[in-house]
Structures are given as C-alpha cells and as structure tokens.
C-alpha cells in the first residue's frame, strides 16, 4: 500500500455499498461502466454453462459442470463456476466467464463490505437484491452478447431454510421453489430434477440429484461438460446449511459421481421415475 495516507474521500461519511464507493472512487473497476465498441462481442470470450441448485430440509445444494466453451471449442475443462458469496450463500454463474468471475468478486466484496461497515449481515433477500442491481448494471454488455446469468442460493437464518434465486439479464430476480437450473444445459437439468426431486432428500441425496441432473445436461447439451473419467474431473458442489457454506471435497463428489456412472452403465438414461 502507498505511503500517502488515506485519501480524503475514504474519510468522508458515505454508504455501506462497496459498488457505490467504487463508482465514485474507481469507476473503471466496475464491469458495467466500460464502453464497448458497437457490435456483437459474444464470440470473443469463453462461456460457462450449466448450474443447478436443489433445496433439502436443512439447506441447499448448488453445483456446476466444469466446461467453458468458445463456439465449438472447449476453452477450459476444469473451470469453476460456483463460488461462496459469503458464509451462508453461494452463487453459480452461466454466461461470459470473464465478466461472471469479475461480477462474483464484486458481489463477494459487496457483501463482506456491508458486513464490516454495518456490523451485521444483509438479509437473504437483501443479498439477492444487491446481486440483481449488479446484474442490471451489466445490461448494456448483455445486449452485445456478454450476458451473465447467476443462480444465487443460500441458507436463510431467519426462515431456517435453503432458498434459491434466479435472475434474468435485466436484473429481474425470481425466487424459485425446490430446485432450479440456469445455463445452456438447464432445460435438460431441470427436466431431470423434476423427476428426481422430492422434499425429503438428505444432503447426500441432494448431491446425487444434482450430479444426475448435470449428467443429463451434458448428455444432451454439447456446452455442458460431463464427468471426465480419464482426468477425474467432476462437478463443483457446494452445500449450504445453518453451519455455513462449504465445498464438498473432490473425493466425496467423485464417489457419488462414480455411483451415478455405474448406474448409467445399466441404464444410460438414468433412474426411471414411477409412471403415476
């Protein structure tokens, strides 16, 4: 850090939003404040794809596949698209990978900044609304093909349950019940979860359900990465409960993924749901 002391603006009273502070002090650091040359920019950078979230009694599970694509090219096969937002929430992102990662960092700092300045955490809805505001500020870029669409989930300490929020590029915020998915493979993942979801899942069941859903997404969507058996690359899975958010270890995910894959050897389309 410099030796010039604290800039005067840092010592003046202001709000508790880090993004608002950045907008005044260093607007060039805000993703939404950049001017782009006209035209479509969507093919310039890698895209991340499918994120799924499932609630269970006591919490919520969020998982993402590991693929980033650029057109027909696989840009990265072990990208991480699910991040802890704070101690009790996680955010998964689909869309332009570079911008998404930047937006997640801004959101993480935003939540932590508020917590430190105010001495208390934002409510679950407050966090969801802040994320909506950050997404909204990115609308101009979304219109040029650089969209970022997050899935936000966490444990609401007041209501004592896991909650899921989805977004659109205009900053629309929608609370989802039970499960949701975003990204290119989301239609297939959501279809799978419809048949797999029940409201008495254990945390391990919920992890199995998201791994199954991502398998189905990868089965039918070329931009979603399936389990990479040769390299042992499996989905990134976070579990959020009243004890906080933690990433499920690679070994534990691998074990569940291996069971899912073994089942698919007998029945490639996955477990059959009852007809009635």
């Amino acid at each position, binding site marked *: *850090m*410099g*030796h*010039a*002391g*604290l800039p005067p603006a*840092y*010592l003046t*009273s202001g709000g508790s939003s*880090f993004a608002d*502070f*950045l907008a005044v*002090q*260093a607007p060039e*650091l805000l993703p939404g404040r950049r001017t782009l040359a006209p035209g479509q920019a969507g093919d310039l950078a890698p895209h991340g794809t499918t994120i799924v979230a499932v609630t269970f009694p006591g919490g919520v599970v969020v998982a993402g596949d590991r693929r980033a694509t650029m057109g027909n090219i696989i840009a990265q096969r072990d990208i991480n698209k699910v991040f802890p937002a704070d*101690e009790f929430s996680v955010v998964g992102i689909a869309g332009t990978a570079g911008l998404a990662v930047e937006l997640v*960092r*801004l959101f993480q*700092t935003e939540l*932590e*900044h508020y917590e*430190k*300045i105010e*001495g208390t955490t934002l409510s679950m809805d407050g966090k969801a609304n802040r994320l909506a505001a950050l997404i909204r500020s990115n609308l101009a870029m979304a219109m040029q093909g650089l969209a970022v669409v997050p899935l936000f989930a966490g444990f609401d300490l007041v209501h004592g349950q896991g909650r899921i929020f989805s977004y659109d590029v205009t900053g629309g915020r929608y609370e989802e019940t039970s499960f949701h998915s975003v990204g290119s493979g989301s239609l297939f993942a959501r279809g799978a979860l419809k048949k797999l979801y029940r409201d008495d899942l254990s945390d391990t069941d919920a992890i199995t359900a998201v791994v199954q859903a991502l398998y189905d997404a990868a089965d039918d969507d070329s931009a979603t990465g399936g389990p990479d058996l040769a390299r042992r690359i499996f989905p990134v899975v976070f579990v959020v409960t009243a004890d906080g958010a933690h990433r499920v270890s690679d070994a534990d995910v691998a074990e569940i993924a291996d069971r899912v894959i073994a089942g698919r050897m007998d029945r490639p389309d996955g477990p059959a749901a009852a007809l009635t």
Partner: protein
Amino acid sequence: MSMPFYVSPEQLMKDRADFARKGIARGRSVAVVQYADGVLFASENPSQALHKVSEIYDRIAFAAVGRYNEFENLRIAGVRLADMRGYAYDRRDVTGRGLANAYAQTLGTIFSSGGEKPYEVELFVAEVGELPEDDQIYRLTYDGQVADEHRFAVMGGAAEVVTAYLQEHYTEGAALADALKTTVAALGQAENGDADREIEVDGLEVAVLDRTRSQPRKFVRLRAERLAALMT
C-alpha cells in the same frame, strides 16, 4: 490593533499533544494479547453496538480508544482501503503494515496541520500470521507515530496498571481461555490503590484473530455465552 501572541512550535505541539492525551485517557483500556492460536483483543465495553474492536480484512483487525466518531471514521476508511486493495489486486496484497502506514500518515498530517484539531484516538492494527512469530501488532498514536508491539500491549484508560499486571502474569503461547482470564483480570486492575474490579462477561468486548479458523476471514467476536464458557 492587537498583535497575535507568539506561540513557539514546541509549545503548540505540546498543547495539541496534551489535548489529545486527555481525551484518550478518559475511556476504558483496550488490551491486545498474543496467544497460541492468534491475537486476542479485549476491552471493557458495556455497549453491544458501539464496537472498539473490529474486523478490517481476512487477517487484520482494528482496535481503538478515544473519541468514537473519530476512530469509527478511521475504521471505515481502513475497511474501504483494504477492500479496494483486495478487489483491485488480490486478497493477499492487503497487509497490516500497509494499513498501519496509511493510518500513521493520516494521523500525522492531521496532528501537525494547524487548522484541524488533532484526533483524540489511539489505535492498534494487528495481523495474524501463519505462525505466532509472524503475528504483527502496531500501535498508532494520535500524532501518527507507529510502534511495533510484541506479546501484549495496552492503550487508553488506566494503561499503566493494566500493562504492569500483564507484564507480571503474561505467559507466552497460552491457550485462549488462559490468555482471556489473564487479560480480563488485567483490565479490572484499579489505579491509586482502589479495590480491583471483576468485570462481568456482559460488560466485555472480546474478539480474536484465530489462525486456526478454516475460513479466510480469521476475525471472530466472542459473545457473552462463549466468554462465560471460556472464563470458567
């Protein structure tokens, strides 16, 4: 027409220092103590809302005595500086030394500039390391001086008697419960031969930078229940 009185620079600085010192001595002491797993901050503070000890960043915490509005201002500026650094560069690029420097410059400038009144505050900036020998504690005084502290340090209130007690009873590498008991006993020391006080857990503000915590953010506030359990 009256002539302004001449005041020598020595006298001017002495007056300003006396003014600041008086303000700082009015409150209760804050003690910072190194223990086996990190750095412990303790103060007598009946308010649950107006904190003297706060988190700045992953491994960095802040404690202050003196005028609340002034040190709160400095705390928020520190959080802004740290978050800005961490966002623009990386979380590892936010250091306690850098923050202490920024505070020193700011306090020094305000103290020696003729216009403003000096800040009536004294600060600790502490950073917990991977190992006890990497822990850093900086003391910043109202005039912008920085001192590097080891083992323990006390500021504000009856700092001398609290320091004297710690000097006698401090043990290196103590467990949290032991360090806490010693520190709370030290804070209850009375000046001028009055009877020592026993401070209730409700009247304490205690926080730690705990290097064993698995999250990147090492700052934890110890609430009354936890304190009661540790103190028994």
